[in-house]
């Protein structure tokens, strides 16, 4: 018998109810966000022992912490006693977490360390039985993921074909490790999958972002002449992941045939770095070529994208509400002038007052409003079906403006929503 959810996703279209049905949303939280690997942090955010940050796995609040042995822990932010959150500091450094209600205290790895006035618990409670709930943790190339599922497949298997692109994305460090430099946060009134679709959708870019295109120099704009660039392609990477290459010559930043002219807008950086005797011209060139980040957008199902020079993290809040974080990246230990320039590039596009994000959010809001007005009509994800072919790795490949990435994500969605019962 066909699964009742099967008909919601076909190879070229998905049902409008995917954005509007609260019962589907509940099932997504259970079947997708609380079972698979969900991105929670970059290791640079918890670099030192005692460092922690708050995060979310689906709708469940968690704490990501670095313990004294250097281990990374992801803990449900819920006291085992009466359920209060044990941490409300977005990020910081400490020895552990103490519930404000009755002062049950937990170590950085979630171990229950202390219960005040323990007399009432003699022969009732063993501390070792009541740690904070620990999630399974996996880390790849500094990207930290967590799962509520104990028997989930290894993270490396889940990332599969995306690993090559994660490795390439990190090359924007130009020899330095990548570090988080801050983040913008905003919400839009729409379903999380509207944003999931967006990352490898270059079709919208020159249309939605006309005002941003008008504000950057011609060199930057021409780098993004995607509509007519045949080398701009999207690959479906399996398990819902996809990559969309916008600037082929920056797909692997270690590869440089020397023909690319450095952008004039960065000449002040070349001049400044050239004053450093330890900075050979080839290293300066490598750094400057990396200033916009990687030349592609990588979408990791279900909640994180690695785009140009930032992570885009989505958090489903409700069936019609999603929070977005745009995490700015820099070079850990790299030249200050370079990191500042990357911050300015990030501010220019991202965030609630950027030149790009508000236009994206407006488009996503409009999708949610329009879909609700024609709930029986399908969402089309069929662009490029006729020109989609496998690449030499067998990955379905089409033009960067095609909807190959969305089809890959919805294929995974369907698999997870219909597996088993």
């Amino acid at each position, binding site marked *: 018998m066909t699964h009742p959810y099967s008909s919601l996703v076909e190879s070229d279209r998905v049902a409008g109810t995917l954005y509007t049905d609260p019962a589907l949303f509940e099932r997504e939280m259970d079947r997708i966000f609380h079972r698979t690997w969900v991105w929670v942090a970059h290791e640079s955010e918890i670099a030192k022992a005692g460092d922690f940050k708050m995060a979310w796995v689906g709708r469940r609040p968690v704490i990501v912490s670095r313990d004294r042995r250097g281990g990374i822990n992801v803990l449900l932010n819920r006291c085992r006693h009466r359920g209060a959150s044990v941490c409300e500091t977005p990020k910081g450094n400490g020895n552990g977490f103490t519930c404000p209600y009755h002062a049950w205290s937990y170590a950085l790895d979630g171990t229950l360390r202390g219960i005040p006035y323990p007399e009432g618990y003699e022969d009732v409670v063993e501390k070792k039985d009541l740690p904070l709930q620990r999630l399974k943790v996996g880390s790849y190339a500094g990207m930290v993921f967590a799962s509520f599922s104990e028997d989930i497949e290894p993270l490396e298997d889940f990332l599969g074909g995306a690993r090559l692109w994660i490795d390439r994305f990190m090359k924007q460090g130009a020899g330095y490790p990548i570090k988080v430099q801050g983040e913008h*946060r905003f919400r839009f009134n729409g379903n999380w999958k509207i944003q999931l679709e967006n990352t490898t959708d270059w079709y919208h870019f020159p249309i939605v972002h*006309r*005002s941003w295109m008008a*504000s950057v120099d011609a060199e930057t704009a021409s780098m993004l002449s995607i509509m007519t660039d045949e080398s701009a392609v999207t690959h479906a990477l399996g398990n819902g992941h996809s990559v969309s290459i916008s600037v082929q010559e920056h797909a692997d930043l270690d590869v440089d045939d020397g023909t690319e002219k450095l952008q004039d807008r960065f000449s002040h950086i070349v001049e400044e770095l050239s004053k450093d005797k330890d900075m050979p011209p080839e290293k300066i060139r490598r750094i400057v070529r990396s200033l916009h980040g990687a030349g592609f957008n990588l979408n990791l199902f279900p909640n994180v994208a690695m785009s140009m020079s930032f992570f885009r993290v989505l958090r489903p809040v409700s069936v019609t509400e999603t929070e977005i974080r745009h995490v700015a990246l820099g070079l850990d230990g790299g030249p200050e002038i370079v990191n500042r320039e990357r*911050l300015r590039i990030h501010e220019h596009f991202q965030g609630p007052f950027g030149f790009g994000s508000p236009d994206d959010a*407006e488009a996503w809001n409009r999708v949610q*409003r329009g879909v609700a007005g024609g709930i029986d009509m399908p969402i089309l994800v069929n662009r490029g079906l006729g020109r989609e072919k496998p690449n030499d790795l067998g990955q379905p490949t089409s033009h960067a403006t095609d909807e190959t990435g969305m089809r890959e994500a919805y294929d995974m969605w369907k698999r997870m929503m219909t597996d088993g019962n």
Partner: protein
Amino acid sequence: MATEAPRTEVELPLDDPRALSAVSLIWREAHLLDARRYDDWDGLWAEGGEYVVPIDREATDFASRLNLVYDDDRMRRMRVERLTGGFSISAAAAARTVRSVSRFVVTGREEDTIEVCSAQILVGYKREETFVLAADVTHRILFGTDGPRIARKIVRLVNSEDAVTASGFLL
């Protein structure tokens, strides 16, 4: 000159005509922003003016960290162009805003500048939704030969580190 929100009580020096002139300019600015008269708004600025909406409310070194807005003259003018050029779908569908600016205190006075801190409450409306943004605002007003101009404006939103709702308007 101090740029933080005042920690001690400071009066609005009514005997200093520059204080009233600064407050008048700040009110005029609020009016122009609510009316989305961005070209006129740009005319209120001194050359080299700095317009900042930080994420970290305690920050004073804005260049070394991520901000919501960190504009020099060039970026501010591009921002005006974006909001008035007709290419931005969020600007075309911008929320209506009504803001009040009050609780003025003078936190610094020099020969040619005066610094005024204030509270700004902005009520926005868009598509059946009404929302509020509150901020501490610091203006540095420069008194040059062509009258008072904004040399620096820092808008510290109360929720700057949280998810901020913004929809095609300026603070």
